[in-house]
């Protein structure tokens, strides 16, 4: 490489235009993460509307249609706008740094896959101001109900097409980067586990997202072009939608949790100062979960009227997922066992992930029992379950990752005291928010209702207090992030003394261009396998 190239190594285009035309994986990672943060607050404010309305029985603030719009949009924004882009942002920042690649394999496609998202969500959010309102039939878009959506309907479909396109381009980019751009000494079984989980996630994305694109296209043609995929009058079957949707929908939930597994598998060894216990079994467990995720979809629809054989098959295959997941949980615990543990903010998030995700996993096992599911179906128990795995699972994983790598990204340490306050407030309020929903569900409160019988009032009030508290707590996080961007004590290259991995071999903040030449792996970087 010539001297002149070196001199330009840190030069960026001036002004805001830089962010529009950038092809740098770090810039694009930042854009993804900030976009996800914005969407987290938009989706979060919708959940504040929901929890405020549910503070007491009767209709206080919203009419039922608007309430249903809030539940539907909250889910779509949080899933496709907050959690998925946040993980893609982490992948963009970290994967090239962790495998010693100069950038993603297709930098310009990378730019495009991010910049599709603002358009997709402008379209989706604009439906709130349309005649007939935003989609209100639930994020699962079951026909025939979803076909009664007003003018918002085509916007819903096309925004999902765009989100899918963005994820698919991101996934292809990530797979090619991981498979082709690793530094020569790093074979697959020496990759950091975050890279492994993202590789598997990206394959899930390219297998599942096109099926979603297909099924929403069928909805579109059913509504506007006279096809009858889901119309019984024309020989179609609305139940078929549920089968095809959940064929996408179940892998989707693993798309949202596997990268969090990777994050936790990175953080825990650092602060336990021990190599990850059972690295190889973690890799195989991730792959098994990914495979199983394609053969369990009908557990979302046990009550739809399936024959006994199918109910049993989907019950047992669902329970089987607990085996590789259990392997992971025990590996994390074993990694901490007799480690020299310290409890910096990222570690707190990681440990709380292990505990709270396990609670979500157990309620998932309860839901997997077919006869029990007939009682739980469409109650708040389901809401409690998937918020434990998605909020205290995925979102806590994202928080942990941000605290863990923020000093590497910004060059400054975040405020540890505020970080701990953010953590403890989040953990208290999120449990206050979601745990009572288990009781509500078991007592029979249905989900997606703006009003309820008075015996559910007490726990709903606890849940709403937790909800508002959890929402406000996240403002601390925004303050911490922007404070770390602007000021704070300088972070060293190896921010955490127990950290291993190539990303810690570059200075903090990570230079604009890194690993123009493939790096050599040191003994420490190779030490992935535990006892």
């Amino acid at each position: 490489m010539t001297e002149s190239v070196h001199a330009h190594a840190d030069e960026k285009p001036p002004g805001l235009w830089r962010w529009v035309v950038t092809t740098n994986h770090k810039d694009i990672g930042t854009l993804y993460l900030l976009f996800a943060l914005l969407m987290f607050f938009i989706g979060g404010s919708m959940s504040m509307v929901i929890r405020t309305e549910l503070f007491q029985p009767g209709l206080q603030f919203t009419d039922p249609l608007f309430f249903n719009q809030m539940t539907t949009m909250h889910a779509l924004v949080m899933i496709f706008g907050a959690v998925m882009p946040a993980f893609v942002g982490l992948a963009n920042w970290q994967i090239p740094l962790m495998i010693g690649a100069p950038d993603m394999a297709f930098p310009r496609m990378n730019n495009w896959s991010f910049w599709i998202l603002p358009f997709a969500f402008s379209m989706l959010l604009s439906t709130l101001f349309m005649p007939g309102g935003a989609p209100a039939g639930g994020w699962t878009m079951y026909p025939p109900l979803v076909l009664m959506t007003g003018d918002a309907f085509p916007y819903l479909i096309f925004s999902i097409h765009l989100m899918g396109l963005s994820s698919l381009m991101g996934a292809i980019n990530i797979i090619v980067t991981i498979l082709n751009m690793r530094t020569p000494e790093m074979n697959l079984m020496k990759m950091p586990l975050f890279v492994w989980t993202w590789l598997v996630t990206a394959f899930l994305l390219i297998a599942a997202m096109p099926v979603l694109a297909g099924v929403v296209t069928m909805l579109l043609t059913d509504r506007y072009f006279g096809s009858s995929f889901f119309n019984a009058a024309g020989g179609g079957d609305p139940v078929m939608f549920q089968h095809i949707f959940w064929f996408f929908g179940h892998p989707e939930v693993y798309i949202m949790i596997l990268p969090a597994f990777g994050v936790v598998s990175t953080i825990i060894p650092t602060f336990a100062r021990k190599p990850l216990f059972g690295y190889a079994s973690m890799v195989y467990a991730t792959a098994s979960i990914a495979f199983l995720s394609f053969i369990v979809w009908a557990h979302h629809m046990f009550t739809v009227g399936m024959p006994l054989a199918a109910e049993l098959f989907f019950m047992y295959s669902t329970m089987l997922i607990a085996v590789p997941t259990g392997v992971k949980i025990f590996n994390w615990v074993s990694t901490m066992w007799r480690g020299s543990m310290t409890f910096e903010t990222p570690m707190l998030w990681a440990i709380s992930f292990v505990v709270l995700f396990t609670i979500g996993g157990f309620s998932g096992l309860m839901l997997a029992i077919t006869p029990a599911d007939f009682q739980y179906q469409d109650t708040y128990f389901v809401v409690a379950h998937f918020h434990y795995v998605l909020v205290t699972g995925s979102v806590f994983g994202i928080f942990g990752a941000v605290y863990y790598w923020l000093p590497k990204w910004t060059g400054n340490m975040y405020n540890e005291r505020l970080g701990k306050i953010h953590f403890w407030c989040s953990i208290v309020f999120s449990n206050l928010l979601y745990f009572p929903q288990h009781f509500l569900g078991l007592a029979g409160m249905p989900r997606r209702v703006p009003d309820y019988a008075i015996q559910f009032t007490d726990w709903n009030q606890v849940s709403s207090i937790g909800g508002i508290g959890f929402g406000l707590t996240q403002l601390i996080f925004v303050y911490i992030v922007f404070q770390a961007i602007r000021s704070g004590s300088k972070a060293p290259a190896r921010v955490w003394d127990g950290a291993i991995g190539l990303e810690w071999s570059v200075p903090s903040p990570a230079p604009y261009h890194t690993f123009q030449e493939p790096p050599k792996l040191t003994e420490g970087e190779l030490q992935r396998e535990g006892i």
Partner: protein
Amino acid sequence: MTRSARQQSNRTLALKLAGITLAMFGFGFALVPLYEVFCEITGLNGKGVNRIVSAAATAVDDNRWVTVEFLSGSNLAGSWEFRPSQSRMRVQPGRLYSVSYQARNPTDQAVTVRAVSSIAPGTAAGYISKLECFCFRQQRFAPEEQRMMPVRFMVDRALPPELGTISIAYTLFDSLNREAAPGS
């Protein structure tokens, strides 16, 4: 690896992955006929099968009685009156029975409707044979017209012994004014 060689291999891999993506998009649509075939073979979704039966050639099972329940529903605009002449019937497998459904068009417009049947439990669907049914073809109703529509059916002697009650439901749909595949 040189830069251009790596770009080449990146491009090849990306094209393969894009191929998988397109294939999975196609697979989403392929699930539709697969679903139909699967349901037809197993009779799982209660759509039943079309089979030719000869009433004369079938022996009646005198020792067995089965309850058949008749349900009706309407998915049409306006409050259509649509109900069976009797809500349940005790039948013997192998014998031919009749029931009629009465429907009245409450609107002041002519409407063409299609009745879609569904049999529950789904595993019984393969053992109900219909010799005549208003659901076989579209039905045109003049404004305010009321009429009786017959169903002639037989329960197969091979009906599994654990099935004691079968329900047959008909739902009226707007025919959308086009020729759709005939219902069962």
